[in-house]
């Protein structure tokens, strides 16, 4: 699809944006309505910039600017992921002209529901990165000695691996997954940073790792060098919160903005963990 450079013939002069706001972690959320003057070729990021510039709700009250995150503005960093009209996607590629065709009433923005809200549309996605650590989503190349060039990867394998490498850790697959449920911890009074971090890591590790981490484990298991640590990744995937939590709803693959074959990765990881477990039982 290409972006439409023509605004709808009946383009409105203004349109309303409903934002689910939250002033801080653990706080109560509330809806706020903003009226934004229509311009050609707006995306949700430029809408949020207008809202910040106005800092005024529809009722005319002066309000704090709505907080959001964005970075690359070309759907490769994942930081502006949020719920636009109830669907998880990147705000930068959510084009207003198209949104208004689908929903002429206006636009509804909500923070992702599976991660703790930091403020307004900004969420804390540490759990996602903790999961990548858990499954060793990297290749061990650092060492004291020059290990020489790595083994070669066939073009066929590269073609399988490349789509998986496009993951930008945006969290869409997790947001849409019915098996990935929100984990939000609050710091106990007097708990140190390190203690809280440790408790949080432990809690995250026992919850579902998610499709993105399973797919990354499959990616690095398929890599000629990464395969040396395949056993460790499969061990991680069979720990508490591992691949066994997947319920095969297959929402992940449907919502992935990079069209990564996540359910193929999940089935591959299913096969790898099956053999891995049998080997552990009968070979050791």
């Amino acid at each position: 699809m290409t972006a439409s450079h023509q605004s709808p013939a009946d383009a409105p002069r203004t349109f309303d944006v409903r934002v689910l706001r939250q002033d801080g972690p653990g706080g109560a959320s509330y809806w706020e309505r903003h009226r934004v003057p229509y311009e050609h070729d707006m995306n949700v990021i430029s809408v949020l910039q207008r809202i910040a510039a106005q800092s005024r709700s529809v009722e005319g009250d002066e309000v704090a600017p709505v907080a959001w995150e964005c970075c690359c503005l070309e759907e490769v960093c994942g930081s502006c992921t949020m719920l636009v009209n109830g669907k998880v996607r990147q705000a930068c590629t959510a084009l207003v002209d198209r949104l208004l065709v689908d929903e002429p009433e206006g636009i509804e923005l909500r923070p992702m529901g599976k991660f703790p809200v930091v403020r307004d549309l900004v969420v804390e996605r540490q759990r996602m990165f903790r999961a990548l650590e858990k499954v060793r989503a990297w290749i061990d190349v650092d060492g004291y000695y020059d290990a020489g060039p790595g083994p070669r990867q066939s073009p066929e394998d590269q073609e399988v691996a490349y789509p998986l490498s496009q993951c930008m850790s945006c969290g869409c697959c997790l947001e849409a997954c019915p098996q990935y449920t929100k984990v939000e911890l609050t710091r106990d009074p007097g708990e140190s940073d390190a203690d809280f971090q440790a408790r949080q890591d432990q809690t995250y590790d026992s919850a579902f790792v998610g499709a993105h981490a399973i797919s990354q484990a499959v990616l690095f298991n398929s890599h000629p060098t990464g395969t040396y640590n395949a056993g460790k990744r499969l061990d991680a995937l069979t720990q508490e919160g591992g691949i066994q939590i997947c319920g095969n709803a297959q929402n992940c693959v449907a919502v992935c903005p990079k069209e990564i074959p996540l359910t193929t990765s999940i089935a591959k990881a299913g096969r790898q963990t099956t053999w891995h477990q049998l080997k552990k039982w009968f070979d050791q």
Partner: protein
Amino acid sequence: MTRNEFIIRRLHSLSGLVPVGAYMTVHLLTNASVLDSPATFQRNVNQIHSLGSVLWVVEWLFIFLPLLFHAVLGVVIIRGGLPNVSSYPLSGNVRYSLQRASGMVAFFFIMWHVFHMHGWFHFDGYLKSVAEPLGGAQFKPYNAASSAAQALRSGAVQVLYAIGVLSCVFHLANGIWTMGITWGVWVSPAAQRRANYASIVFGVAMSIVGLGALNGMSRVDVEKARQIEDQIYDSLKGSKTPEELERDQHKRDLHRTADAEHPTAEESPTADLVLPDTVPRR
């Protein structure tokens, strides 16, 4: 529990196919043999009951316990998820929710069905004083078709059975498909699509078998079937010891609700209880 989560979930997945799903397939096919004739069904039931005193061990070990394990863990799994069909109305997601809903329906249906037909336990005192007064234990293995037909006489019961059977069949057919992904049997989208077609064909076929069995049972001529069944029972009697005959009494339909004015023969179980003559002829 949490340390062995992977193994436990895989056992849950496996137990759904073997033995629970395999048992259900055999069960529905056996029941559908009533469509041939009550005598065929009776002979199939006799085959199962030829296991005699070890039958209950087989039932508990290979049917009830795996079923309870699958059901209890299934509830744990359901509680761990948060269905979101309204936000993401995708076919896989709908099936995810239906798998959980059909599992719950199947669980309550099977618990009721086993009580309704079987009574849950075999102790004579319990069967007489608890299960039967509560409407349970209505299936009598040596009067298989006639007692099943009587148990399924009411239209409401038939509707509940149809809902229950279809839930079980959907749960198994969809479960086979998800199981193949879980274990890594079908991996690529194309393979998953082919497996999906195969499980749909299986599900439709088993629905026909299950509803056919239900329909066949409800159309059994009770009096005629009872005569045939009693004849088959009489032909078996020669090969049984008095103890076995005594033990088998709860497996026979001796109440004969259809002719309540006749005295029942429960008092002398080893005597020739039911001669074909005692069955009122039309």
